[in-house]
């Protein structure tokens, strides 16, 4: 197919009667076909040369039309083309006149002086049989409540409690300062008599320590164990007290005259009180 076309195009090129412009187009087509036939990629269509100025093309067309060698049919086509080209010729731009719009003239109004309003007094109104108009109440300016969070309330100051002594203060007692002064006087005297002061007996020191040890041991026993078996635990406490008594009596041989039964009894009486208290609480129910 392409070979036939190529041959056809070559024939056209050989024809001397054809115009040069036509032959240029034919040559381009021929070259493209030959390239395709050779297996080459079709060359990118060459960008058309920038359009020739219309005036030069028109002149060429006029020359071709005047050429006597060209057949009449072709000349007719060329004439039609020429006519078309001439029509397409750009017309010279017409200058557009700017139209200015005038502002419509507005007749100025004269400032009219407001007529003084005729205010009827209440008396006149009553005379005419009308009810006097009630005076409009002065509206209080509305307080516009702002939306959003309320302003924080200021923290109330803490009111300090006043100390009230649980023990009633007896009236007629001497002042605190006088009492303090008296006490200082007594203390001063006691210090002055320090050399002649009696000291604590050894036995009392020992007894207080022993009794304290027993008391601590008793108080260390948890409530639960006493509740579980109250009688047996209290019996044990009693035994401990007895042994403490015996232990204190044993000092008699060593201390001799220092030993005083009454002191031992007073110290032991506290222990006895504690045991009695416990027996009342747990054993006798």
């Amino acid at each position, binding site marked *: 197919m392409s070979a036939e076309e190529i041959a056809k195009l070559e024939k056209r090129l050989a024809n001397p009667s054809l115009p040069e412009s036509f032959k240029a187009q034919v040559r381009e087509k021929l070259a493209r076909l030959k390239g395709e036939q050779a297996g080459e990629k079709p060359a990118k269509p060459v960008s058309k040369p920038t359009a020739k100025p219309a005036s030069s093309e028109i002149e060429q067309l006029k020359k071709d039309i005047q050429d006597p060698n060209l057949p009449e049919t072709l000349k007719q086509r060329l004439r039609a083309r020429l006519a078309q080209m001439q029509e397409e010729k750009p017309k010279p731009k017409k200058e557009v006149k700017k139209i200015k719009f005038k502002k419509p003239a507005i007749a100025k109004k004269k400032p009219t002086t407001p007529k003084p309003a005729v205010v009827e007094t209440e008396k006149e109104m009553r005379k005419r049989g009308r009810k006097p108009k009630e005076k409009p109440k002065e509206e209080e300016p509305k307080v516009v409540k702002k939306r959003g969070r309320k302003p924080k309330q200021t923290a109330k100051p803490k009111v300090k*409690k*006043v100390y009230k002594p649980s023990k009633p203060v007896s009236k007629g007692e001497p002042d605190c300062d006088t009492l303090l002064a008296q006490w200082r006087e007594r203390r001063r005297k006691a210090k002055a008599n320090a050399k002649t002061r009696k000291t604590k007996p050894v036995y009392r020191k020992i007894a207080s320590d022993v009794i304290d040890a027993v008391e601590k041991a008793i108080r260390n026993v948890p409530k639960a164990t006493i509740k579980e078996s109250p009688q047996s635990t209290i019996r044990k406490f009693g035994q401990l007290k007895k042994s403490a008594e015996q232990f204190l009596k044993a000092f008699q041989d060593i201390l001799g005259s220092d030993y005083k039964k009454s002191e031992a009894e007073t110290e032991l009486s506290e222990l006895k009180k504690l045991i009695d208290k416990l027996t009342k609480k747990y054993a006798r129910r």
Partner: protein
Amino acid sequence: MKKSTLELPHEELILEEAIRYVELPQEIKDDIQDFEELKSEYRENPSDIGRETLIKESIKIADTIQDWLEQDLPDSPDDDYDDEKINQFKPTWKFW
């Protein structure tokens, strides 16, 4: 209200005489316990009245402690004992 430090005579006395709490008789121990309760009340809500009552109570306790100390007790046996011992173990014999 006075801002001076609380002066409690019975506490001063105990410190001066180096008295152990255990040694004190039960009555005084009870009084001290009551006093401590009063003291804690005062610490929570201090006031002039509270301060005065505290000091008065403290003076009372101090008086009882002083009475207890000044009971008719024998002379200090420790000092006598030491003197006697020293005299007793003095060498009375001579090597020469």
